[in-house]
């Protein structure tokens, strides 16, 4: 069984591997963090949050200062999907953001007796249900 853990990552309980939800690329052991299986790029934050007032004349411009802030972009090596983004000071070790107890996850789903992908949802509310359903029909939500 595959358990969706983030928008772009599932844990395959049979192989105990992180897998890309978009292209099924293997991203490494589910017992570890998924980041070692990704490609990473250190973005100058000014490329994303572009200055709104003139950076030639002013110090504060709506853009983060690259000497304070870097944006790490994590890509799936299979399809190039940007699966995570992390804002860090330059040189700061990337965060181990997810470490899942795989046997406990398996036991949890065995007890539920459900297919994790089939029952996956984004939460309650009529708007959540109707909008998610509408987006699924055009293939915009997995």
């Amino acid at each position: 069984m595959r358990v969706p853990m983030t928008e772009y990552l599932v844990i395959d309980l049979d192989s105990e591997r992180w897998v890309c939800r978009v292209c099924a690329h293997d991203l490494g052991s589910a017992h570890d963090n998924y980041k070692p299986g990704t490609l990473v790029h250190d973005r100058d934050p000014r490329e994303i949050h572009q200055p709104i007032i003139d950076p030639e004349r002013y110090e504060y411009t709506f853009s983060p200062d690259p000497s304070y802030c870097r944006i790490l972009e994590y890509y799936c090596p299979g399809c190039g999907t940007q699966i995570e983004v992390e804002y860090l000071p330059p040189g700061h070790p990337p965060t181990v953001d997810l470490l899942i107890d795989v046997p406990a996850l398996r036991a949890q789903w065995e007890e539920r007796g459900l297919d994790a992908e089939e029952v996956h949802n984004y939460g309650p509310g009529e708007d959540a249900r109707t909008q998610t359903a509408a987006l699924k029909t055009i293939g915009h939500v997995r």
Partner: protein
Amino acid sequence: MTAVHENPSRVLTPQEQEWVDKFMDETTLFLGPDPEIMRDHGIAPRSDHEELAIAAGVDRLEVERIRKRIAGALDEGYEMCEAQGAAPGAKWGDLTTAIYTASGDVSYLSCHGVIAFSAILHHPIRYIMKYWKDEPTVGINPGDGFIHNDARFGNVHNTDQSMIMPVMRDGAIIAWVAATIHEGENGACEPGGMPSGSETPFDDGLRMSPFKIVESGELRRDLLTFLQHSVRDPKLQLADLKVKITAVRKIMERVDAVIDEVGVDTFVAALRTTVEDVEVEVRRRISELPDGTYRFDQFMDSTLKENILIKFACKITIKGDQMTADLRGTGPEILNRAINSPLCSVKSMFMQAILAFWWPDLPRCTSAMSCIEIISDEGTWADASYDAPMGQSLQASFRGFSAFQALYSRMSFSTPHKYSNVVANWFNQINTFLWGGVTQHGDMVGNLCADLNGMPGGAKPFRDGEDSVSPLFCAMADTAEQEVMEEEVPFMQLVSKRLVRDNMGFGKFNGGMGYEMIVAAEGTPQWGFMTVTSGAKFSSVYGMYGGYGCGTYPLAMVKGTNVYEHIRRDPSKFDLSIEKVMNEQPFEDGRYSTYHMGLQFDIAKDGELYMISQGAGGGYGDPLERLPESVVRDAELGRITQKVAEEIFGVRYDPTNFRLDVEGTEAARQAAREARLRRGRPFAEFCEEFVTPEPPESLHYYGSWGSDTDDITATVFTIDGPERVSAPLAELPIVMIPDRREVRIAELEARVLELEATSGVEVKRLA
């Protein structure tokens, strides 16, 4: 030779212990905050009365009926405060009413208002019960009311003032009712109650430990006068005390009617049962989450006086029905800056996330968080000591909210039954103007604009976040009518609520956008503005699952010119935006400048412009997955520029008619993905190059560097200037930052000496 004299240790007899306790009680010089009370967010053990009442049998339908009636009473009290309150915060809904068990656990909170109070007001009630109940000079009697504001005794922050009254029967306390309002002005070193400039706890304004100000139904005029004398707005202090007393009494009338109807024991059992049921339910919900560890660290870029980087670390571990939040790694407190927060205030914002964004269906009880273990070492900016200033404690506590909000979306993503939607981070800064001075009516005032309530929402996996929708701490809060405010204060918002283009967290679904505000005073003998926000160099909100966070936000000013005069002479100049004013500089005699958003109270001359923008919510998902039609619509509406449409979203369209270029977009997106695969480096290889053993030398950094260390890195200031140290928190020296003006003067003096030495100018040191 050393003689060793061992004193045999022995346990005191009960009689001896009584003597010791009596001696200590009679000779304690100062009853400050009690760590036993302040470190504990658990619910109290069942009292004998509760035990007996529950043992007699609990009818669940009866409990539900009582709860509904209490909820109605609390909502009525809430509406009274909102309708009658004099504080701007009251008018916008920044308040709460609540009922507590006799021990002080929140059993139910008003449906509207600030949920965070469910985690906080048991502290002052426990203090009152422990220290004042049996104190002969105080005591607790029917009709009494206690006031309190100091967060060191349990509060969200010091602008909030509570009126706490006991519900008594036959001389026994069976419950408490309280109303709490964000009053704003509190006599701090700057107007408005949230000073960014406080450098000692004594700059933070009123330091009200819980004390009795209403005695047997009468408001004590002597104490009221003392409070009025201590703040800038004495009328506000009186008016809202009366409003809170009236609201609490109205709630108590309703509660009395319920008690008369169902009996004391049933009422007591109903309050306690609610608290206990919620704790049981919370444990069950925790057990639905996957076991594991989840980490979300944040970095704040300002002390509100200068730029630094300070970490807020948070790791949550789930094991079965146990949840532990570990804050170790968080940066140290800075002993002469306002950003520190007591742990209880940070916990209150954890609660805000829990009851607003995790489990909004639960009754708002102390027990919604009581079973979550929180590990934190005192002495960090998120768990500050008694001696630290806390005027802007929201800087740390709002990070606590963001940590819990972000982590829950991760923890709950896989669960089949959710209690709330998956959502990226809400904006978490108070981007508004605080103000103070003399009004056009001659009154001295100090408070803030309701625009702090215009925080944009985070994106969801199925829709964009809402623009400037509500503050993270109060879903129903209003941004108010600026025109109404302008009748009371001598400044205008020349631009109000105009969205700033490209100001959103980009993603498959975008975070909500924020609007800009431009203000200028006129016709007042004295007026000033201040801002109290971080996030001008390092984004304060991050995105989710490939979405980006918000940008950064400057304070822009035009000084030395009266814009009103310009506009009167040439009305066409009344076409303002931060972008236009700062880039085109239309007022030729003005001085244009930008700053970080920590502006201490700044005297505003007539017509000088102060300009800020609300932030943005976090984006959700890969921006290259956003529907191209949505991107073109954003461009057509002016929400994004063509540059952003192309570079961030990979969308191509004809800018003359906003017609989507389907093939061009497909090709651009394919090229963008291929470019990622080319520039992305394998993680291990990337880390080898990117990760450094310590922060860049130029950065004043505070917190753990990475998460695999027990050491905290800090920059301390010695006789030789800034020096980086790294040690466990308990071994760090006190961190104090020198006055930035003195630093600047020293730099300029050094430069002058250097120039004098090389220029050949003859310098006379004596007059």
